[in-house]
């Protein structure tokens, strides 16, 4: 048993492919859940079942993962583009770095889904979340909306990126509760742990495994050739090891830490370390960088960050195209934004469905979205004292 414990509770401290990024997450179990929870003398039939136990379950949850990753992007972009040009450079840099990593996570989730014969769906109306709303697959404990950069919106971002609670002292009963029976997830990390366990389980119980070794399927992977600028590594998924690496990348970048955020005394920070989204947002909220000797418990005590909470376009929260109907020019622009956004989703859909080179074409659209969003945020919304903003609605 101690070997297994070691496998769960230890591991290298950096992520494969990027020695600078700490692998702050708990290493995912390297063995199948059946064996993990094998208690001496117990019958296999008595063992707890994972939440995700069929290939269809798995595909459905991975599609949710793609949706989940995407659903964080419009809120982050609204905050980013609401920052007035030339101000808040640190805040902009931090939010931008998170956005591009969320895009990476979305593609990584799609890669896993493709590797097991699924087909990511990205260009449908249902794919686009309604704001304000809950994150796909979440336990509905908080609402996410399209809002300008503010302490309140950063606070929501912190909730999105909140780390998982720590693994309890090894106890099969408790672990089973935590990992297998929770309907809806408190954190994104928990969700991916359930997916990883599901992958292990279904792969082990499927003759020949679930990773399809076929050049036609391999061609559906988005590789380093097509994807870049994410800070992290794109991982093409051909095997269970690749899937694990991809999930570690996602969870590691997102929330990061193998402990509760308030209690850990681990020294995690420093100039050359790329730390998780949660802590980057926390730096903004605290208006201070983490210093090398800081711990999650100490909070950031390093150099102050100048955050100008006023130098922000006063974008109306959760705008809809409907709100603009009395201002025809604004309406046209907002629709143009939505058309470009929908077009971009369509390109990403194609890229994740056998035409990875389509991603390259998305670059121009991403710039167009940025310019249009900035224009929208400069247009007053009637006499309300508020400004318009992008609505991120599906508009084919």
């Amino acid at each position: 048993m101690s070997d297994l414990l070691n496998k769960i509770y230890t591991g290298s401290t950096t992520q494969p492919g990027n020695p600078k990024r700490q692998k702050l997450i708990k290493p995912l179990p390297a063995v199948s859940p059946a064996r993990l929870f094998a208690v001496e003398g117990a019958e296999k039939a008595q063992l707890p079942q994972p939440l995700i136990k069929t290939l269809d379950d798995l595909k459905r949850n991975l599609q949710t993962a793609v949706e989940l990753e995407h659903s964080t992007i419009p809120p982050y972009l609204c905050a980013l583009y609401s920052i007035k040009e030339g101000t808040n450079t640190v805040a902009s840099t931090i939010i931008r770095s998170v956005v591009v990593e969320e895009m990476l996570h979305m593609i990584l989730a799609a890669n896993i889904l493709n590797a097991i014969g699924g087909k990511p769906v990205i260009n449908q109306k249902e794919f686009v979340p309604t704001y304000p709303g809950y994150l796909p697959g979440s336990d509905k404990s908080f609402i996410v909306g399209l809002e300008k950069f503010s302490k309140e919106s950063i606070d929501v971002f912190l909730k999105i990126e909140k780390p998982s609670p720590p693994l309890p002292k090894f106890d099969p009963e408790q672990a089973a509760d935590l990992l297998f029976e929770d309907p809806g997830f408190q954190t994104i990390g928990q969700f991916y742990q359930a997916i990883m366990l599901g992958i292990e389980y279904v792969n082990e119980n499927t003759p020949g495994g679930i990773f399809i070794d076929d050049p036609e399927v391999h061609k559906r992977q988005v590789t380093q050739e097509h994807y870049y600028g994410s800070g992290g590594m794109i991982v093409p998924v051909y095997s269970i090891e690749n899937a694990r690496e991809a999930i570690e990348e996602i969870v590691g970048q997102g929330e990061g830490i193998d402990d509760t955020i308030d209690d850990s005394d681990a020294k995690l920070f420093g100039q050359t370390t790329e730390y998780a989204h949660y802590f980057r947002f926390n730096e903004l909220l605290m208006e201070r960088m983490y210093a090398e000797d800081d711990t999650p418990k100490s909070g950031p005590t390093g150099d102050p960050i100048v955050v100008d909470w006023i130098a922000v376009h006063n974008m109306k929260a959760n705008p809809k195209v409907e709100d603009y109907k009395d201002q025809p020019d604004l309406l046209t622009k907002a629709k143009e934004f939505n058309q470009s956004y929908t077009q971009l989703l369509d390109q990403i859909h194609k890229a994740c469905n056998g035409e990875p080179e389509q991603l390259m074409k998305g670059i121009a659209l991403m710039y167009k979205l940025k310019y249009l969003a900035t224009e929208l945020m400069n247009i007053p919304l009637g006499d309300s004292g508020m400004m318009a903003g992008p609505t991120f609605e599906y508009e084919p």
Partner: protein
Amino acid sequence: MESKHYDVVIVGSGISGSVIAKTLTNAGKKVLILEAGLQAGIALEGEAAYNVYQDYIRTFYNAPAKVPNSPYPDLKDAPSIDVLQIQKLQPGQVPPPGYLVQKGPLPFASDCMRGPGGTTMHWLGTTLRMLPNDFRMKSVYDQNVDWPISYEHLKPFYEMAELEIGVSGNVQDQHYPGIGPDFFGEDYVYPMRKIPQSYMDGLISKKTDRLKVTVNDKTYQLSCISTPQGRNSVPNTRYAYSKIIWDKTKKKLRLAKADQYNNIPSLWDNYTGERCEGNASCVPICPVQAKYNALKTLKKANKENLEVSTRSVVSRIIIDKKNKRVEGIEYKRYENPGEPEHTNLTAKGTIYVLAASAIENAKILLASDAANTSDQVGRNLMDHLVMLTWGLSKEKVYPYRGPGSTTNIPTFRDGEFRKEHAAWISPIDNWGWSWPVFSPGSDVSAAIANGLFGKALRDHINEVVTRQVLLHFEVEQSPEPENRVTIDPAYKDALGNYKPVIHYSVSDYMLKSFEAAKIVSDQIFEANDIEDHTVYNPVTDPDYVVYKGQGYTFRGAGHIVGTHRMGFTKDDSVVDKDQRCWDHDNLFLAGCGNMPTLGTSNPTLTMTALAFNVAENILKQL
């Protein structure tokens, strides 16, 4: 105060200095770099690097004339050349403004950047290798001089340079005149795939590739090929190297194998600059740092072994009269770049490297009365002489899509004609008429003067700017002893250092090329239905020349070369084939100044290859 002793003291943090510093520090040697520019510019990480670069970009946006040095600080205590200030010195008159003292007869119209990262901050990024015959001009064509090293000698160092810079290109496209199958190694690929050629290049190539042109009674078939460039694109999965390492046992530098090539993003974060975005402002500044600059190399140095002293302007090297070895480098450390107050300091090391640009290197040597047994220090100043031709295309070609230049015509880079006139390369430029006539600003001013405004003005600009075609003939200049850098106590800068005095002219071997190139240009314009609008103005163009009754204007390419040439003996050259001074065995020179001839390649790639060669030679000697 006793100063610290280093293994190597390097003057300048441009590409040569950075390559040498990186290679030596990673091989465990202690290195000091003396950099004349400001401390802010040396920031290599995070917010500091971001902020200083954003400052450069803002300065560029606000500059009325977008000349190559426009984003970067011009310091009174370490002045940079300003290409807008190249008026000739008139006898008996107060010297006109500008760092260079232009004695003429023609003004020298090129600049370099004096500050952290050097001229790679504003370079275009073209990374063509020189051709085998460029190294043996005397033996093959009875012109110029031969190099003491061959293309084959430099080839492994070219491969290192292409890794270091991160070259994007397609080796299959690289057909140049006069090269054999061994020019690139078998199966050689660049680290990254080629930058997509611009829309305009596609249109021009359609009617220019394979076009037959006649010049001086001979017919040539033109070709249009993609240009390798030092800016990020898609990594080539077949490229198998990641770094350059010092092999202690074999006493050689070599490429180290790796699973994949990772391109180098911006200094400030990993989220920016992994691909060229086609912003088209490569010169003077790439807004996302997808274009290579030397600070990316310096960032890879072993920081434990490296010190960089900024605000440190070198004035003189000290030489032991008896053994002729360099004993130290004197420099002036200013506090405020606008004030003359400074501290005099001396840096000491086992070996010294001057990598401060061709002009500064020559100036420092002359001021120190060093390395000059051959009387070649400062002589043979060269540049590519850029003759531009411009016209309006019938079809809209849409310049400014993509980086500065993605295609070139290599046909006249080598051939028998070099016995008669200089070779040239023709990049197809992607910047409309901005260079010769300051488009699109000048188009807007002219239209407004004609009463256009609003939509009519926009429509007019859309009609005109989108049809602007610029061809570019970069003529190789020969080394000539009277084209030279000198010093004169009458001309000094704010710190009391010498200003470079430039003597410069162009002889018939090059003028004949202007004539030939214009004939070729006419035929290209005709084949492409381009209406020629080229005007060479004898009054307003500083470098206006006449050949056989016909006027031509050339411009500077920013390729400052040749002022401390390498050669075969201590009587014909300043450095030997190892780039060590003949006169001082612990003084190496680095940079374009070592090049005996220029060829038709933009010189940065060759300079980088030479810098790796210098680094190897220093490691052998230490």
